[in-house]
């Protein structure tokens, strides 16, 4: 499609602005994540958790706390499926801890040890201050604002503490509940007490909270609480999403498998042709791999081998290698189809940023981002208002967008995801389809359906029921595909990256934490920077010369292959256009023809020349060599023959003149074998000459036999007039009703099967003898069938031409 010369079409500007506006206005009201309310920082949470521990009379020594931020899928599902979304947001913020902190304390194990919970040695001692000093596993869940939801002490405590009376244990539990629940604890009623080596107390609140039963369970051992659970129980069993997840998983794996095979196949094929460049892919994949390492570094508080070395070595290696293959395959495939779409992409990868080409793609990419964000916001708003949509996710760890440097984390993960998704599902898929399908709409729709059923797309926010998610993915897919088809690769990548980043980062503006507010603002500042780059780039009048130094060298090899392919197509067209379109109708002659060009064009040629009412000139020839040169020489031969045939009535004279012209005008080494003859239906004769061609086969009705007619003669172009003329013999034979004349090229007699046996002249003779009552056309079809069944699936290596003339 032609690239509009204006930087941004009007419609694009208008739709982008609408998209941006709806995103800014609606986001806060439609995204579950915008209801997160956070304490200032990681430090605040650590402080809150250590103060809670102190209240529980624990004092951790030699601990390394690990913090994570999670969402509880079940609670999210319950709240969003039972309440209108705006209400659900308030519930999530104030009452039901859908989002929670997880703080676990484990003994620092050192780099090369893994921690096994059950086997860990536990040291417990009671200090003079009554605090239990413990080196073991503690875990607690805190609400967003730092209140205790759950506490577990998983350590096996072997030190027997003083046995406690039930009343004392209950006092300990009630004190704790008072502390953590506050005055509303008076609304709870004690339900059960268990006693074995420990005491378990269970309370239930007298009223439900948004339909959920709220309970407290406390387990006391000795003088300490080892379990505290504030639990929220939905009134009925929630729909199981597991079976749906299984289907998704199967589809995902299937799709992955298909694409892995396709990418591997293309990569191997292109590597063999030396048509893959890793230059661009290497830069992008190293950025992705390095980004992962950086992000991991800022977040991790794991110091075990499995938790530290594996992510830092294996994951980046995997990212780099897989992206290299994917980008290599996608680039190579698309350079075949639409090299112009990679120009600004090539430029930006080579860090040529300030120029018009790049600026234009960036501007359109920003437009694409806004449009996608608009679709995102409107889609969620519509489904929340008009359908029974709800959200869920299996206790998904969203630590990465809360801890560390959230903006960095979002950008890094989005960057990798965009590289995978766009290079596979847009650039590779569309190029692959484009090659095979003409209709642009067909390829956009097929690619979008594939994307629609690809659930790798959005793990961040899972919408249910699943159909809604497919429709959404499909819509997003359509827009992305259209932008690639209309604009270029850089537009697509920038648009998709912007979308991935903002759809996540925007939530941070509403979390009520200054740190996160700035993190949420960072992408906007980056966007501003991008706009300045666009502005400067557009001021640069000149497009940089992108063609010569930016295009990878393998492209010229690819162009060479494409050029040869086109040449062959031209040669084939020339050849086909030179063959007669109709067979002249001459009384008494029943003529049928067969001409099947080989993939690698040979130089077969046949023609009919109507000399007058009763004479028909007939020619069959085979030009040496293949491809465009054969087509060219055939043109020459045809021209020579047409000009000579009407001048002279003797095939011998025509042939002599033809050789003279050909020998003079064609380089040595090129020759044509040819038969030229004249059927005279008034005189009932066939007069012909043979210039080095396969003999004429005659099936004679009078003699009831088959004969090869092979008068002396040398192929055209082999030698000068002296020898040629001397050897050129003309033969005339009488024709009778029922006689059959067969002219053919060596493609017929030398047709090969997979055993490298040739079809041979004997077979041809036998077929003709057995079918001599057939019409010309029936005989041609019969011979064709026999050849086909002889060669089977062996590829045809030479043109095959067959002329059958039956005398009526």
């Amino acid at each position, binding site marked *: 499609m032609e690239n509009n010369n204006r930087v941004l079409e009007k419609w694009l500007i208008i739709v982008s602005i609408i998209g941006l506006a709806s995103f800014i206005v609606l986001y806060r009201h439609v995204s579950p994540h915008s209801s997160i309310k956070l304490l200032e920082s990681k430090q605040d949470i650590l402080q809150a958790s250590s103060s809670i521990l102190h209240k529980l009379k624990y004092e951790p020594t030699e601990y390394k706390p690990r913090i994570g931020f999670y969402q509880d899928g079940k609670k999210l599902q319950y709240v969003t499926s039972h309440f209108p979304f705006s209400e659900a947001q308030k519930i999530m913020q104030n009452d039901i801890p859908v989002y929670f902190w997880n703080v676990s304390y484990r003994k620092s194990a050192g780099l090369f040890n893994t921690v096994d919970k059950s086997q860990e040695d536990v040291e417990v001692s009671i200090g003079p201050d009554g605090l239990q000093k413990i080196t073991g596993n503690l875990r607690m869940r805190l609400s967003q604002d730092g209140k205790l939801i759950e506490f577990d002490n998983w350590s096996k405590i072997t030190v027997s503490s003083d046995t406690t009376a039930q009343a004392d244990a209950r006092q300990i539990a009630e004190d704790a509940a008072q502390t953590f629940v506050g005055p509303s604890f008076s609304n709870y009623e004690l339900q059960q007490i268990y006693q074995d080596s420990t005491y378990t107390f269970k309370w239930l609140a007298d009223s439900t909270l948004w339909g959920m039963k709220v309970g407290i369970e406390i387990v006391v051992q000795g003088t300490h609480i080892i379990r505290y659970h504030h639990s929220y129980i939905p009134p009925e069993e929630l729909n199981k999403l597991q079976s749906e997840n299984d289907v998704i998983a199967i589809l995902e794996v299937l799709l992955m498998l298909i694409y892995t095979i396709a990418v591997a196949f293309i990569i191997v094929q292109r590597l063999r042709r030396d048509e893959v460049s890793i230059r661009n892919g290497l830069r992008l994949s190293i950025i992705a791999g390095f980004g992962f390492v950086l992000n991991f570094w800022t977040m991790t508080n794991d110091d075990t081998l499995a938790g530290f070395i594996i992510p830092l070595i294996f994951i980046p290696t995997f990212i780099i290698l897989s992206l290299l293959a994917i980008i290599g395959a996608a680039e190579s495939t698309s350079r075949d189809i639409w090299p112009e779409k990679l120009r600004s992409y090539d430029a930006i990868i080579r860090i040529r940023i300030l120029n018009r080409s790049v600026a234009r793609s960036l501007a359109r990419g920003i437009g694409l981002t806004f449009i996608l964000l608009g679709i995102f916001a409107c889609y969620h708003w519509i489904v929340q208002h008009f359908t029974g949509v709800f959200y869920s996710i299996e206790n998904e760890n969203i630590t990465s967008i809360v801890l560390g440097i959230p903006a960095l984390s979002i950008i890094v993960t989005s960057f990798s995801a965009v590289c995978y998704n766009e290079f596979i599902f847009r650039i590779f898929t569309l190029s692959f389809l484009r090659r095979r399908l003409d209709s642009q709409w067909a390829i956009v729709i097929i690619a979008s359906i594939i994307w629609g059923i690809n659930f790798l797309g959005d793990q961040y926010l899972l919408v249910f029921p699943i159909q809604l998610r497919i429709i959404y993915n499909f819509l997003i897919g359509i827009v992305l595909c259209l932008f690639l088809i209309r604009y270029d690769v850089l537009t697509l990548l920038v648009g998709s990256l912007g979308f991935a980043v903002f759809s996540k980062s925007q939530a941070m503006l509403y979390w009520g934490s200054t740190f996160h507010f700035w993190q949420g603002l960072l992408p906007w500042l980056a966007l501003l920077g991008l706009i300045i780059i666009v502005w400067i780039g557009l001021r640069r009048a000149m497009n940089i010369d992108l063609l010569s130094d930016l295009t990878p060298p393998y492209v010229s090899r690819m162009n060479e292959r494409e050029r040869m392919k086109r040449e062959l197509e031209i040669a084939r067209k020339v050849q086909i256009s030179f063959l007669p379109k109709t067979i002249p109708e001459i009384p008494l002659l029943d003529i049928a023809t067969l001409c099947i060009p080989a993939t690698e064009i040979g130089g077969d040629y046949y023609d009919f020349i109507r000399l007058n009412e009763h004479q028909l000139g007939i020619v069959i020839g085979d030009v*040496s060599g293949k491809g465009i040169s054969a087509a060219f020489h055939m043109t020459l031969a045809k021209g020579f023959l047409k000009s000579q045939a009407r001048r002279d009535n003797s095939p011998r004279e025509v042939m002599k003149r033809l050789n003279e012209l050909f020998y003079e005008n064609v380089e040595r080494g*090129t*020759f044509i074998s040819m038969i030229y003859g004249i059927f005279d239906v008034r005189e009932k004769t066939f007069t012909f000459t043979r210039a080095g061609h396969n003999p004429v086969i005659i099936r004679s009705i009078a003699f009831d036999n088959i004969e090869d007619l092979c008068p002396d003669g040398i*192929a055209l172009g*082999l*030698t000068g007039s002296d020898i040629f003329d001397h050897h050129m013999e003309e033969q005339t034979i009488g024709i009778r009703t029922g006689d059959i004349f067969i002219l053919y090229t*060596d493609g017929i007699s030398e047709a090969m099967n997979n055993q490298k046996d040739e079809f041979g002249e004997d077979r041809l003779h036998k077929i003709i003898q057995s079918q001599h009552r057939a019409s010309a056309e029936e005989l041609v079809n019969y011979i064709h069938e026999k050849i086909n069944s002889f060669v089977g699936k062996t590829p045809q290596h030479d043109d095959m031409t067959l002329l059958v003339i039956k005398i009526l």
Partner: protein
Amino acid sequence: MALFEVNRKEDSEIAVLNIKGYLDAHTAPKLEEEIQSLMNEQKYKIVVNFSELTYISSAGLGVFMGFIEPIRENAGDIKLTNMTPKIFRVFDLLGFPSLYDILDLEEDAIAKFK
């Protein structure tokens, strides 16, 4: 993939080329190169032994035509020997026997040169 091979053996001023396999548009340059290098060495008496050749295409035939004129101008020749009946038929149909010395045996060709 040795689809086609040329082996050269020299007997004083007469060079014998043993050709083997498939001689077509793709393999013809190999033979061209070999004959060209003989000409560069001023060796114009060439015998080509076809005994191990299984297939020849029109492009393969073209090789001999390309060189025959300059070689004959230098008082040399290309003599073709030991063709299988199938290969001979290809040459025969095209009228090569009137243009080239095609002999049954390599020794005959060598003797003829002497």
